[in-house]
């Protein structure tokens, strides 16, 4: 048994680590691990969280050894507070939201693409490597303090639970596991909304059963700095005892508190320009965003709050002379935040889709519609007619009363009665890390476990058999290999024959996932793959070696597929030879060559 159980909330904008002494795990409350990090050039300090930013400076930008840590000499990058500080001043040199890149659909998260706008391609790293750097930092910071005592206390020797968005599909989970492996860590993955719910279970360890009813559906609404994540948990009655099952997860929604602060700041900036003719630069916008965040917290907490002063200090040494000041009223906040991001809407509303231009720049797929309530309506509609009877909020944004009460009001409107229960007692910022810690306890059998199946269904593309028509490629259909809800830690053979692999050649399968198609069974065929509810994943490939004379190169070997879903939601697909020598081959994710995507432009120029 490890000495500690460690929970890591690997957030899009902030990372928190909490830990428990494994021997006292049943009673102890998780403690937050203060993370030593570079806070400025040549300066390090402990902070309660590690901002998820990575700064890759040029030689001249920082003094020699200014990014060194006790365990790292001559460092040429840094993660944490100083990196975040530079995100606005040096946008091309700082990686942010690396996590969202892990599940970005149009890029390969193992290729060297970040920071997206860096001028020197040789300095770019992959989203997987960025994640690895964050984990390495946590490992080394721990081993420099708690882990310095004895060999048993080393980070890599502990039971580590790492949280990922519930919307992460098998590939994004696999990428996260690869990053952990490269940081020489063995981790268990846990979905963030589940972790938040575990924190709630821990907070009410004695009497949680009194607070929910059998048959009830609980919505976990997690709105972080950069992303929004929904999950539904069903309370079931198993022979008189309550049981919990995670029945649905949402898509990855790139919308969070940072968008709200920015929206407020840009609103104020526009008003300043209109009323006073003052135009703010990037630096001032950053200062204003910070002031807006503070004003938001006051205005959202108290319905009678006075207008809040917003001050942007001068950038140069003339701090008084350069100061711009304005104020924001509760009505303005209501308009830009509550009505802007949480408009009252119908359950059958859906978020507006952006009209995708023919040529889109690569990058993160930010939401076209900022209405969180519409995303929520679409999520609930996709998962049946039943509406949640209880809600657990999580994430920094949900500390704002004005916003959470609007969400409650909206759901009550859909329910047609004002009886939605709000589950409380957790810390909106730290519940995920604490809950992850608690999950370590759950795994040892000391507390109730939320049962969860695959949150996605998965498909491989197959060519439909039809008479060859010159000039027309045969239509592609999708074969379901993992159905929604497939139990984690199990495997199944796909009842479909008609697949073949060519010996000595690489066979590629296109691979798709869906968080919305909950009714398809393994072995079923979906005729059209160009649909909104399927998203592309990296291709799968298998190469059969030329082994014996009976099957020379070029021979077609008929195969079946087997899907293996691990405990932590990663997926393996195997090809099983039908008849013959019953050989098996694993399908590998096809990771494209590790070149930045925008290098293609340069090649085109040459």
């Amino acid at each position, binding site marked *: 048994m490890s000495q500690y159980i460690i929970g890591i909330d690997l957030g899009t904008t902030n990372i928190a680590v909490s830990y428990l002494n494994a021997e006292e795990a049943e009673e102890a409350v998780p403690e937050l691990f203060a993370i030593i990090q570079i806070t400025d050039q*040549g300066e390090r300090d402990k902070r309660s969280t590690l901002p998820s930013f990575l700064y890759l400076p040029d030689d001249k930008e920082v003094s020699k050894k200014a990014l060194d840590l006790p365990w790292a000499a001559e460092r040429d990058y840094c993660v944490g507070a100083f990196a975040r500080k530079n995100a606005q001043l040096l946008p091309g040199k700082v990686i942010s939201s690396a996590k969202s890149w892990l599940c970005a659909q149009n890029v390969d998260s193992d290729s060297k693409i970040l920071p997206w706008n860096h001028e020197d391609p040789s300095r770019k790293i992959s989203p997987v490597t960025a994640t690895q750097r964050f984990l390495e930092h946590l490992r080394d910071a721990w081993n420099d303090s708690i882990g310095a005592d004895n060999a048993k206390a080393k980070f890599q020797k502990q039971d580590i639970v790492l949280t990922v968005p519930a919307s992460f599909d098998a590939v994004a989970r696999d990428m996260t596991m690869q990053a952990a492996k490269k940081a020489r860590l063995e981790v268990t993955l846990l979905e963030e909304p589940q972790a938040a719910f575990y924190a709630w279970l821990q907070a009410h360890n004695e009497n949680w059963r009194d607070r929910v009813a059998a048959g009830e559906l609980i919505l976990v609404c997690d709105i972080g700095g950069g992303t929004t994540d929904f999950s539904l948990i069903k309370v079931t009655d198993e022979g008189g005892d309550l049981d919990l099952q995670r029945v649905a997860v949402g898509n990855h929604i790139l919308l969070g508190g940072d968008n709200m602060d920015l929206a407020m700041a840009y609103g104020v900036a526009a008003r300043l320009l209109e009323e006073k003719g003052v135009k703010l630069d990037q630096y001032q916008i950053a200062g204003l965003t910070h002031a807006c965040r503070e004003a938001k917290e006051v205005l959202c907490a108290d319905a009678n709050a006075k207008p809040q002063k917003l001050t942007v200090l001068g950038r140069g040494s003339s701090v*008084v002379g350069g100061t711009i000041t304005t104020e924001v009223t509760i009505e303005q906040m209501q308009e830009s935040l509550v009505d802007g991001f949480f408009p009252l809407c119908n359950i059958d509303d859906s978020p507006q889709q952006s009209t995708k231009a023919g040529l889109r720049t690569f990058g993160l797929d930010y939401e076209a519609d900022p209405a969180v309530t519409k995303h929520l309506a679409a999520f609930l509609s996709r998962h049946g007619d039943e509406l949640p009877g209880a809600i657990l909020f999580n994430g920094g944004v949900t500390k704002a009363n004005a916003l959470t009460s609007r969400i409650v009001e909206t759901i009550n409107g859909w329910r047609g009665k004002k009886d939605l229960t709000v589950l409380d007692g957790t810390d909106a910022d730290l519940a995920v890390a604490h809950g992850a810690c608690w999950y370590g306890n759950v795994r040892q059998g000391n507390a109730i476990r939320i049962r969860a199946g695959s949150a996605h269904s998965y498909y491989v593309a197959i060519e439909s058999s039809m008479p060859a028509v010159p000039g027309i490629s045969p239509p592609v259909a999708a074969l379901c290999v993992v159905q929604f809800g497939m139990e984690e830690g199990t495997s199944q053979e796909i009842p479909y024959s008609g697949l073949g692999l060519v010996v000595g050649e690489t066979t590629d399968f296109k691979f798709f996932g869906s968080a919305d198609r909950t009714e398809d069974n393994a072995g079923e065929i979906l005729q059209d793959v160009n649909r909104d509810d399927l998203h592309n994943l990296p291709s799968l490939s298998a190469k059969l070696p030329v082994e014996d004379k009976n099957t020379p190169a070029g021979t077609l070997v008929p195969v079946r597929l087997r899907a293996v879903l691990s405990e932590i939601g990663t997926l393996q697909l195997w090809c099983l030879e039908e008849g013959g020598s019953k050989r098996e081959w694993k399908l590998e994710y096809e990771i494209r060559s590790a070149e930045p995507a925008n290098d293609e432009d340069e090649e085109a120029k040459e």
Partner: protein
Amino acid sequence: MRISDAFQAFFRVLGGADLVDKSTLPPEPSTPEPDPETAKKLVEAEATLAEAVASLTAAEAAQTEAAEVQFRDGAVYGLLLLQREGRLIDFLQENVDDYEDEQIGAAVRQIHRDCGKVLQENFAMTAIVDESENEKTMVAEDFDPSAIKLTGKVPSEPPYKGFLRHKGWRATKVHFPTRSGKIDPTVVQAAEVEFI
């Protein structure tokens, strides 16, 4: 000579005392002259001692100088934190004669808030006597005159009962981040040059 060397030399002398036996001690006026061998040892021992004392003095001086440098750098660093987080130096260095009070007030509100955070986080500033000012207070008999200043008609004997005019401030901790690398300790705010 480094401090450690100086100490080594000093302890060498102390530890070497056994080779300077009692007979090598300075002679009593009445005793006869020591034999030449002992006299030589005595001279050597005195020389070693003198050398050790000299190097200790040098070490002390170096130590004092190091402490002074540390103190000076620490003081500037305190200013740096107030400037970086709260723009205090910009504010104090600026000529505010020509600005309206409203403009100054707007800036000060922000500077006040940000500098206050530094005082709390880095110095944990707390009142020495946490009571209401201008109310009666009792000063303990064994009070520390550097922390509590008695004024007015101070009684010659306790009880010291008076009015609290200023509750005092104490930095209950000094927490500075660790610094490393090649950093110029006199810089309070780096100049900034932007390329567009």
